[in-house]
């Protein structure tokens, strides 16, 4: 264990190594580690944000579902109401059409009856004339008694 100039050499080597480490080793590693720490911190923040966003979205989904269900109920109720209105209207229309048809039929029937009555009257008059003719064959002249027959026909009306 003798001392000699090796000591000075070692001293110089010591400072050279320390300087190189300070210049070329320490800064890049510090930079990388700090950047990684920041990345991780950012990642954690993003994860937290994503989690809260998810919770928010789920809440929104529930809310939307509830709204949709409510509006579906509304739509159904109004549709039912409208359907009822349609049915009523249709029913009223049908009743109106039926009444109209009945009226028209009645009117037509009245006209027909009138016509039948007139036809009958003619026939009755003819029958009466024919009957009277048969009874009065000889005495009655259709031409001579035309006025009489016309009067009779008038009376039967």
């Amino acid at each position, binding site marked *: 264990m003798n001392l000699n100039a*090796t000591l000075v050499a070692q001293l110089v080597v010591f400072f050279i190594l320390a300087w190189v480490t300070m210049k070329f080793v320490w800064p890049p590693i510090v930079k990388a580690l700090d950047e990684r720490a920041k990345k991780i911190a950012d990642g954690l923040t993003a994860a937290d944000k994503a989690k809260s966003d998810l919770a928010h979205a789920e809440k929104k989904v529930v809310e939307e579902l509830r709204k949709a269900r409510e509006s579906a109920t509304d739509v159904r109720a109004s549709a039912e109401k409208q359907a009822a209105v349609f049915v009523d209207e249709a029913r009223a229309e049908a009743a109106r059409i039926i009444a109209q048809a009945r009226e028209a039929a009645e009117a037509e029937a009245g006209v027909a009856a009138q016509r039948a009555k007139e036809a009958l009257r003619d026939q009755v008059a003819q029958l009466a004339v024919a009957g009277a003719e048969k009874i009065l064959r000889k005495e009655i002249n259709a031409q001579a008694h035309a006025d009489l027959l016309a009067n009779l026909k008038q009376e039967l009306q």
Partner: protein
Amino acid sequence: MSTGHEAHAPTAGEYIVHHLTHLNSTGHAQTAIIDWSVWNLDTIFFSIAMGVVTLFILITAANKATSGVPGRFQAAIEILFEMVADQAKGIVHSAESRKFVAPVALTVFFWIFLMNSMDFLPVDLLPKIWALITGDEHAYLRVVPTADLNGTLGMSIGVLLICVYYNIKIKGFGGWVHELFTAPFGSHPLLYPINFLMQMIEFLAKTVSHGMRLFGNMYAGELVFMLIALMGGTATVFGFLGHVVAGSIWAVFHILIVALQAFIFMMLTLVYIGQAHESH
């Protein structure tokens, strides 16, 4: 490992002494306790080699560093990086100083860990290879730079210089001189010399103990490996079994020492530099 158990085999003492002698610029063992004209070539070579490996690993990690998903290598380096950065943050409170101090701590930790790890190589492996390369069977080579007091004191004096730098930077030169004379006992002309003496002793003790602690641990560890290798060198069944069992146990235990001493050196570096930031 072979310990050179030949006909003219060295005695145990010679073996140990041989393995504890540095390959230096003079070519033979240094006799004077302090001789500034001598360089330990093995310590310088292996510490620079380990320094290059350290920088290679760290720069590879730095180039690969991304803010995305890290690979295993990157994650491993990042774990150590975070460990050092956290310790630095807890001890040195100036963010500006940490830009230099934290890389120093990281470098020190990696570098010392690798230099200590040279102890895991079989004690005779590299010296034998070196002897074969040089053709000199008595060529000296020590492979653990931290088991050389020059290596560890070189680093601890480096830490001392950083401490002085921050003392002056934070407190101003006048402020620091004022502190040297008035702390720890208080501001009184009679106390100035005592305070100054205490401060000097403190700096000396910090620096010497800082370097000596690492040196002592690694030197002792290396010595134990050599003693265990001597057991195998007897080439008996008992010696062989003893070498395998004791060598395994000590190597496993030494993993702890290697990592722990690197960590302690790094922590003390941070603590001393942190103290330089605090005013008494």
